[in-house]
C-alpha cells in the first residue's frame, strides 16, 4: 500500500480491534491502555508525521523477497510454538497455578486495593513500571535531541496573520472543542485516581490528558498553546514525574526497608501501600502526559517551520 494515510488508519483500526480482543479476553486494563495509546495517541502522532513527510511512500526498486521469507519463517515458527501450549483459559495452566494465586488471594490483604492489576504493576512489580516510565522519558528526550529546532525564530508578522485567518475558518469545531476540553481533562483525572478500583492509572490518564492539550494545540495553533505550556515547564514536569516515582523508592529505603517497599512509608503497611501507589501513579501520569505533549510539540514545531518557509516563499513569489 503506497498511501501512508491509509496505512496509519489501518494501524489505528488494528489497535482498536486488538483492544476489543483484550476486552473479550477479560483483560480490561490492557484493553484500555491499548485503546488510549495504540489507537489514540500513536495514531495521532503518526498523522502529524505524515503532514511533514507527505502522504505517499517513495517507490522502491528492490523486491522484498528475502524479507518475506524471513517473515514467513518467523510466523511459522510462532505457529509451531503454539502446538504445545496449554489450552486457553484452562484452570491448571502454569500461569494460573504458580504466582497468580497469591496475587488473587493475598493482594487485598497485602496491598489493600481492589484492582489486582494495579497492585501487581504498582506494588509487586513496581520496578518494572518504573522502568517503563523511564522508557517513556527516554523516548521524549530522544525525540527532543533529534527534532528540536533550537530557539524558535521570532514570530513573523506575515505568518501570524495567515495563521489567524486560517483558524477563523474552523469556528464550529473550535467552539465544540472548547466545550469538550474540560471534560476530557476531568476524565483524565478520573482515570488517574480510579486506577485503584477499576481499569485505569497513570499511563492511560497521562495519555488522555495529553490528548486534550494536543487537541487544543491543533485548533488554536502552536503559538497559543505555547503561551499556556512552554517547553521548559513541560521538561520540568517530565523530569519531576520520574524523580517523584524514584523518590518514593528512596524514601522507603531511608526508612530502612528495600527500594519500593511501600510498607515502610506509613506506620500501617496497607496505608503505606496506598500512599506509595498514589504517589507513583502521579509520577507516571506526569511523565507520560508531558512526554506526549513534548513529542507532539516537537513534531508540530518542525512542521510549522517547514510551512512558514513555504508560505514566506509563496508570498514573496506573489508580490514579485
Amino acid at each position: 500500500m503506497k498511501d501512508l494515510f491509509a496505512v496509519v488508519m489501518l494501524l489505528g483500526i488494528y489497535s482498536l480491534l486488538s483492544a476489543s480482543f483484550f476486552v473479550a479476553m477479560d483483560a480490561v486494563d490492557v484493553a484500555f491502555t491499548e485503546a488510549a495509546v495504540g489507537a489514540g495517541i500513536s495514531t495521532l502522532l503518526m498523522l502529524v508525521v505524515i503532514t511533514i513527510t507527505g502522504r505517499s511512500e517513495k517507490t522502491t526498486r528492490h523486491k522484498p523477497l528475502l524479507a518475506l521469507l524471513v517473515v514467513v519463517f518467523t510466523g511459522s515458527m510462532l505457529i509451531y510454538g503454539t502446538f504445545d501450549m496449554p489450552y486457553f483459559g484452562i484452570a491448571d495452566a502454569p500461569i494460573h497455578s504458580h504466582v497468580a494465586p497469591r496475587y488473587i488471594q493475598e493482594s487485598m490483604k497485602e496491598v489493600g486495593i481492589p484492582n489486582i492489576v494495579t497492585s501487581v504493576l504498582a506494588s509487586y512489580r513496581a520496578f518494572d513500571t518504573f522502568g517503563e516510565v523511564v522508557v517513556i522519558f527516554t523516548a521524549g528526550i530522544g525525540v527532543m535531541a533529534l527534532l528540536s529546532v533550537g530557539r524558535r525564530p521570532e514570530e513573523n508578522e506575515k505568518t501570524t496573520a495567515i495563521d489567524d485567518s486560517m483558524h477563523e475558518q474552523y469556528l464550529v469545531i473550535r467552539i465544540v472543542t472548547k466545550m469538550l476540553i474540560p471534560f476530557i481533562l476531568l476524565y483524565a483525572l478520573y482515570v488517574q485516581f480510579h486506577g485503584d478500583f477499576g481499569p485505569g492509572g497513570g499511563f492511560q490518564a497521562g495519555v488522555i490528558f495529553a490528548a486534550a492539550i494536543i487537541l487544543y494545540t491543533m485548533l488554536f495553533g502552536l503559538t497559543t498553546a505555547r503561551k499556556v505550556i512552554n517547553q521548559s515547564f513541560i521538561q520540568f514536569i517530565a523530569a519531576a514525574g520520574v524523580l517523584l516515582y524514584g523518590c518514593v523508592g528512596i524514601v522507603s529505603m531511608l526508612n530502612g526497608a528495600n527500594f519500593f517497599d511501600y510498607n515502610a512509608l506509613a506506620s500501617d503497611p496497607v496505608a503505606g501501600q496506598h500512599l506509595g501507589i498514589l504517589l507513583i501513579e502521579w509520577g507516571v501520569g506526569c511523565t507520560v502526559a508531558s512526554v506526549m505533549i513534548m513529542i507532539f510539540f516537537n513534531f508540530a514545531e518542525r512542521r510549522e517551520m517547514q510551512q512558514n518557509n513555504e508560505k514566506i516563499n509563496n508570498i514573496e513569489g506573489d508580490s514579485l
Partner: protein
Amino acid sequence: MISHLPVLQVIVPLMAAPICLLLKRSQLVWLFSLFASAIAFIISVLLLQQVMTSGVISYELGGWEAPWGIEYRIDQLNAFLLLIISGVSTVVLIAAQTSIEKEIPKEKHTLFYILYLLSLTGMLGIVSTGDAFNVFVFLEISSLSAYALIALGQDRRALWASYQYLIMGTIGATFILIGIGLMYQMTGTLNMQDLSQRLPDVAQTRTVFTAFAFVIVGVCLKLALFPLHLWLPNAYTYAPSIVTAFFAATATKVAIYLLIRFTFTVFGLSFSFTTLPLQELFLLLGLTGIFVASSAAIYQKNVKHVFAYSSIAQVGYIVVGFSTSTITGLTATLLHLFNHALMKSAIFLALGAVVYRLGNVQLSSFNGLGRQMPLTMAAIVIGGLSLIGVPLTVGFVSKWYLLTALLEKGWWPVAILILLGSLLAVIYVWRIVEAAYFKKPLAGSVPVKEAPLFFLIPIWLLITANIYFGIDSRLSLKVASAAAQSLLGVSP
C-alpha cells in the same frame, strides 16, 4: 546502605538523568554525569568485592520475595560486567565534554548527557536483574537511548545508521520479548532462578523450543553475531566519537552477557546444547565472523569502519570461546569481554581525539600523524597490538586462554584458524601504522597539535590498564574463572 548496593548501582545513574534536565548548564551537567558514573563505578567495585568474598547477593525490590516480586541477583558474572560497564563509562566520560564541543551543537549537550546516563542505566539494569521481564524493560531503555545517541552524530549518514540499528534492534528486542512471553506461559514465572527450576519439566515441548530459538536469535541480533551484524559498522562509524567509545566497549558485551545468562542459567547447559546444535552453530558462525569481518576491515578507508569491523571479528572470538562450553573456554570468553572493552574504548577514544583535531578519520588523513600526535598514535598502536594479541598486552592473555581451551577440547584445526584470524588483524592494524609513521603528510594539509589533555588522560588510563592486565592478569583471571565456574555449577 551496604545492603542496598545492588539497587543503588542502577538507581544512581537513573535518577541522575532527570536531574540533568533540570541543571541545564552544559559544563555542570558534564561534571554531574561524571560524578554519577563514578559513584556507579565505586558501587560496582564494592559489589564485586562483596560477591568474591561472600557469594551471591540477592535483593528483593519492594520487599516482595522472588517469584512474586522482582529480584536483583548479583553473582560473580554480573559483578564482573557491572565493573566493566561502569568503569568504561566513567573513563570515557572524562573526555566527553571536550569531544562533543566539536561534534554536537551546544543546545543539545544536556540531552546528550541525559541519554548517555540512561543508556548506562539500561545496561547496568539488564546486567543486575534476576528477572526475565525486567531485562526487557531495561533493554528498551538502553536501546532507545542508543538509537538517539547514534543519530546525534554530525554526519548525516548517522541518521540512516541509527535507523538501521533501530529496526534491527527492535526486531531483536521483540524476539526476546516473544521468547520471554512463551517461557512465562509454560512456567508461570519470570524469575530467572525460578525459570531454571521449572523449565526442565516442560523442556520437551515445542513451545519451550520456540521460546529458546526466539531468545537466541534476538540476543544474537543485539550482539551483532555474523550474519546479523549488518547494523554495527555504520552505527559505530557515524555515531559521535564518545558514543562509539562507550558502546564498542559495552553494548555488545551486555548482549553476550544475556546470551550466557539465558543459555547457562535459565535454560541450563544440558538443554541449551542438546536441543539446538548450538555448539556447532556458534563455532561456525564465530569463525566465519572472524574471517569475513577481519577481511572487510582490511579494505576500509575510514579508520572507524576498520575498528568497527574488528569489533565484529572480536565477537567471533568471544562466541568461539563460548561454544566450547568448558570452564577454560568460558573463562577465555569472559576475559576477552573485559580485555576487549579495554582495548576498544582506548582505540575509539584515540580516534575521537583525531576527529577533534582533524575533523575526520579517513585513512589518508592519518598520513604523518605519528609525528604530529605522538601520544595518541602510540595509544592506537598499543591498542592495535592488543587486538592482534601480542604478548605483554591483554589481547595475548585472552587469546592464550582461548587457544588452551580449544586444544583441551582437541579442536586444533579451530586453534589454527584463530591464529590465522589474528594475522588478518596484523594487516589492518599495519595499514594504520604505515600511514601514521611511514607516509608523509598529504600536500597542503595543515599540521595539527597533540590531542588535548582531557583526551590523553582517559586514553592513557585505558592503555595502562591494557598493559597492566596483560602482565599481571591474576585479578581479571580470578574473577573470570570464578564466574565461569559458578556458571557451570562447579563449586570453586
